[in-house]
């Protein structure tokens, strides 16, 4: 063999060997290139699955009868089955067909199994999910429910449908994300539905406020903590109308802050420097809170109008839940029809076998999060710090439940093993200040999914509320309207009865049974209102009951009521509400917090300018006075106000900052700041960052306003030059579930800001996740949209087709045919026929 041949052979061997290696192995974060690039079966094949085929068929072995699914032009499947069981199987099939990756990702996230896809990077997130007991309680629910519970039954039927899709799909149908990760879809288990539902409970009701409160109290004392983070919201516009004047401002004097050590000038300079550096992280903290810790800046809206106050004389209902914005969206729109049994339209969460929010021919409903306190922590005494086996309870040692949780890596190897413990209350958490057990209603929920089918079948407000009696967690403000013109709202879920005065803000001693929950509120005790004389109902996550009507503890640290104030103001002012107005309310640009704070800024500036000329303050006040208090996209003043308010909050709550840094342990609600405005000389206004000066309210208001002008000028240019336009400074960002920018819809201009009915704050990753208006006339009509599209395939025309509509605040009228087969030909995008058969 010549040397050229040898070289050629060596080169060939290197190419083949290297090609096969990168073709079949993961290199860094790249998937194996062979199956990835394969144009017949790899990533390129996804193009062939972009659109819904005009005609398709599949076998779902467990079906009792054939099921026909018609996809309308918006990509909504209209499922017509002969039994509820078949409808649920078909639901599993069609949702998996469009959203398989999302379903599996969410189930894995809830189960704490993301490391199997992402390796060590996901270990902390997985540990958190396992530690709070998500998969532990889901397994317990499955075992307890056996084959008798509706939740388990629907989960099993749904899994049949999902797995039938998995069995029938071709390689082109494998979602693109699996290809980037280099993983394959897993068989769908019924427990996944429970996990995803619990994940929703985690998002909406997991809280560490008891622990945070401890840290706050350590810094400012118990009395000040109670005043700055009160059990009752100082601005009352309760969900449950009570014939009192609303809104009501319950502003009370604040106890003084604790004595502070006097700081030297050098210390102050150092702290100020650090505080300024911390300014952006503080914005980040704000965003972090927005993601869940401080639900006050986010939340949901729903409202209903009685026939007496609607233009057409029919009840109207609006649903506007706010959640994390992702592509694909958290929601999937569907119409389920079983003649004589169920005919329901609405949105489901991929992975959950139910229509969560929607309407049927008689009833429409929607939810907002109640935000009640449903999680308590208890100090535990364990027999060992390192490997405990028992906990001390009522004078004796009790066995801890122990479970070993392995975390698997990308290739199935074990990358970590955690030993977790539970007491009779729930999981034990090892915090810095000692072991605590937690009790949380989400871990005790067994039957909530089943309740939704009862709701889907209901024919009146009364039947709906009866159906939802078995709904447990996360607690929701369930608004409902029926075709007879009834409207109602009830905060529904498990609300713990606590010992003593019922307060749940403290961490109690876990060694005594007298500190345990003593049961749950009775159904007749739930906050509830039916056909109120005011002719409308509205909730926006505000405190459900006026504490002057019912003083029982339900929760703490309620979200700011700006949205509640605004929707009530709109509904109060209009006795002939139309559908178009209801749609417009979703993106109403007015914000009640501006009504409270703008006059305060302007009056303080006016008072100061009389005594001391200040060109910056004067200019800032002039610009702010020009503001129409609207958060429209082209508004050029809202940014000045927002910056001033943020600065005011930062300067005011310096007492909550660390002794050696500018970081706050927590930030009181804007309602507390509003209350503090009533006390101009309160010591809380004194800024600890200054030496030998005692600031008053007006000092901080004017300093914040001046600062805002300088800051906004610096960052966004001079006023009225286009740079201050709200659409430039505030965006919604709808990220793909894996955060891939190329598959996301970032930097969308929005009408609304923090506290608007269409809220947008922090990183802009939360907002209105589903908008729905339903008119309960002779024929039910509905208008809807959500920020995304039905398909999970990023190259489908239905992937993000609704985003621009969502940005504009318009809705689509839905097709809700009595018989989907009678849909007009040009309304039908595709037909899917599911047949029984195959291996039973």
């Amino acid at each position: 063999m010549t040397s050229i041949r040898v070289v050629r052979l060596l080169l060939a061997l290197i190419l083949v060997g290297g090609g096969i290696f990168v073709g079949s192995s993961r290199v860094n974060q790249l998937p194996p290139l062979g199956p990835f690039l394969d144009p017949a079966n790899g990533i390129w094949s996804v193009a062939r699955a972009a659109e819904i085929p005009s005609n398709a068929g599949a076998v779902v072995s467990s079906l009792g009868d054939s099921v026909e699914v018609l996809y309308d032009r918006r990509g909504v499947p209209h499922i017509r089955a002969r039994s509820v069981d078949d409808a649920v199987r078909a639901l599993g099939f069609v949702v998996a067909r469009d959203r398989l990756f999302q379903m599996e990702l969410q189930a894995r996230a809830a189960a704490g199994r993301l490391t199997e896809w992402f390796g060590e990077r996901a270990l902390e997130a997985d540990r958190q999910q396992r530690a709070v007991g998500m998969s532990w309680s889901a397994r317990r629910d499955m075992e307890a429910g056996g084959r008798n519970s509706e939740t388990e039954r629907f989960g099993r039927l749904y899994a049949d449908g999902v797995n039938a899709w998995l069995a029938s799909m071709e390689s082109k149908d494998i979602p693109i994300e699996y290809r980037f990760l280099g993983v394959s879809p897993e068989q769908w288990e019924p427990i996944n539905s429970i996990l995803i539902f619990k994940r929703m409970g985690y998002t909406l009701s997991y809280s560490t406020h008891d622990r945070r409160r401890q840290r706050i109290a350590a810094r400012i004392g118990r009395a000040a903590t109670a005043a700055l983070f009160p059990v009752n919201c100082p601005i009352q516009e309760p969900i449950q109308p009570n014939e009192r004047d609303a809104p009501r401002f319950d502003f009370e004097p604040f106890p003084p802050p604790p004595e502070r050590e006097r700081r030297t000038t050098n210390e102050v300079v150092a702290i100020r420097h650090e505080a300024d550096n911390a300014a952006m992280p503080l914005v980040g903290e704000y965003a972090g809170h927005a993601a869940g810790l401080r639900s006050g800046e986010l939340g949901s809206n729903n409202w209903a109008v009685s026939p007496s106050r609607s233009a057409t004389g029919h009840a109207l209902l609006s649903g506007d839940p706010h959640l994390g914005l992702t592509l694909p969206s958290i929601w999937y729109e569907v119409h389920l029809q079983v003649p004589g049994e169920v005919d329901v339209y609405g949105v489901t969460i991929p992975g959950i076998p139910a229509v969560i929010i929607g309407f049927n021919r008689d009833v429409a409903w929607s939810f907002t999060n109640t935000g009640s306190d449903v999680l308590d922590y208890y100090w535990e005494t364990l027999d060992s710090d390192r490997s405990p086996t028992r906990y001390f309870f009522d004078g004796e040692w009790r066995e801890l439940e122990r479970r070993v949780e392995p975390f698997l890596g990308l290739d199935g190897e074990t990358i970590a093993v955690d030993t977790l413990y539970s007491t009779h209350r729930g999981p034990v958490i090892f915090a810095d200040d000692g072991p605590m057990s937690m009790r949380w209603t989400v871990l005790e929920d067994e039957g909530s999914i089943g309740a939704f089918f009862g709701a889907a079948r209901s024919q009146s407000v009364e039947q709906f509320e009866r159906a939802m009696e078995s709904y447990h967690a996360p607690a929701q403000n369930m608004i409902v309207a029926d075709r007879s013109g009834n409207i109602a709202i009830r905060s529904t879920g498990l609300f713990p009865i606590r010992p003593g005065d019922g307060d749940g803000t403290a961490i109690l001693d876990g060694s005594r049974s007298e500190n345990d929950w003593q049961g749950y509120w009775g159904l007749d005790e739930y906050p509830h209102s039916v056909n109120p004389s005011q002719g409308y109902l509205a909730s926006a996550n505000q405190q459900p009951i006026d504490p002057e009507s019912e003083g029982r503890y339900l929760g703490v640290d309620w979200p700011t009521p700006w949205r509640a104030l605004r929707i009530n103001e709109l509904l109060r002012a209009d006795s002939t509400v139309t559908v178009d107005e209801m749609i417009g309310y979703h993106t109403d640009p007015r914000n009640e917090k501006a009504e409270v704070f703008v006059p305060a800024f302007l009056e303080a500036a006016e008072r100061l300018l009389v005594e001391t000329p200040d060109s910056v303050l004067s200019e800032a006040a002039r610009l702010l006075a020009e503001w129409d208090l609207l958060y429209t996209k082209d508004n050029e003043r809202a940014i000045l106000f927002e910056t001033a308010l943020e600065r005011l909050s930062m300067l005011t709550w310096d007492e909550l900052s660390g002794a050696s840094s500018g970081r706050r342990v927590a930030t009181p609600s804007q309602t507390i700041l509003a209350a503090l405005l009533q006390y101009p000389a309160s010591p809380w206004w004194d800024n600890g960052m200054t030496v030998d000066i005692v600031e008053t309210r007006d000092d901080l208001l004017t300093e914040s306003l001046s600062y805002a002008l300088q800051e906004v000028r610096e960052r966004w240019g001079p006023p009225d030059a286009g740079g201050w336009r709200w659409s430039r400074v505030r965006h919604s960002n709808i990220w793909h579930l894996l955060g891939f920018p190329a598959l996301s819809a970032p930097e969308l201009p929005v009408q609304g800001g923090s506290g608007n009915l269409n809220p947008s704050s922090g990183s802009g990753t939360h907002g209105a996740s589903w908008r729905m208006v339903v008119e309960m006339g002779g024929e039910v009509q509905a208008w809807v949209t959500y920020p995304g599209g039905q398909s999970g395939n990023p190259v489908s025309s239905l992937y993000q087709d609704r985003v621009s509509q969502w940005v504009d605040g318009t809705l689509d009228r839905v097709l809700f045919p009595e018989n989907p087969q009678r849909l007009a030909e040009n309304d039908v995008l595709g037909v899917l026929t599911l047949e029984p058969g195959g291996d039973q």
Partner: protein
Amino acid sequence: MMRRTISQVGLLGVAFAVATALFGWWAVPLLGCLWGVYEEARNKPALVAALAGGLGWLILLIWNAVAGPMLLLSARAAGVLGVPSATLVALTLLYPMALAWGAGIVGETARLVFASRRRK
């Protein structure tokens, strides 16, 4: 000679496309190697295999483009990977070419070695 090579590349390209669709990407090195064993060295089997490998996957890419939004997919997938979309397309064509060429050389060498042993 030229016509023969072109027709070989065309036919083998179709074979690569069909084999990839049926058996996945592993078909490329296998088919490349088999072609190297089958065809005489003077007919440059490795080069023909490389061109046919690229052609086979090009045919499949065209099939995807006819059946769906390939350009959009190319832009989005390349965006995720942080490369220009042309790079992803080029990689998709070069990868089978490299595999098929290398495998063709291996096959060709195996044929030569086998033939020389038979002669001995």
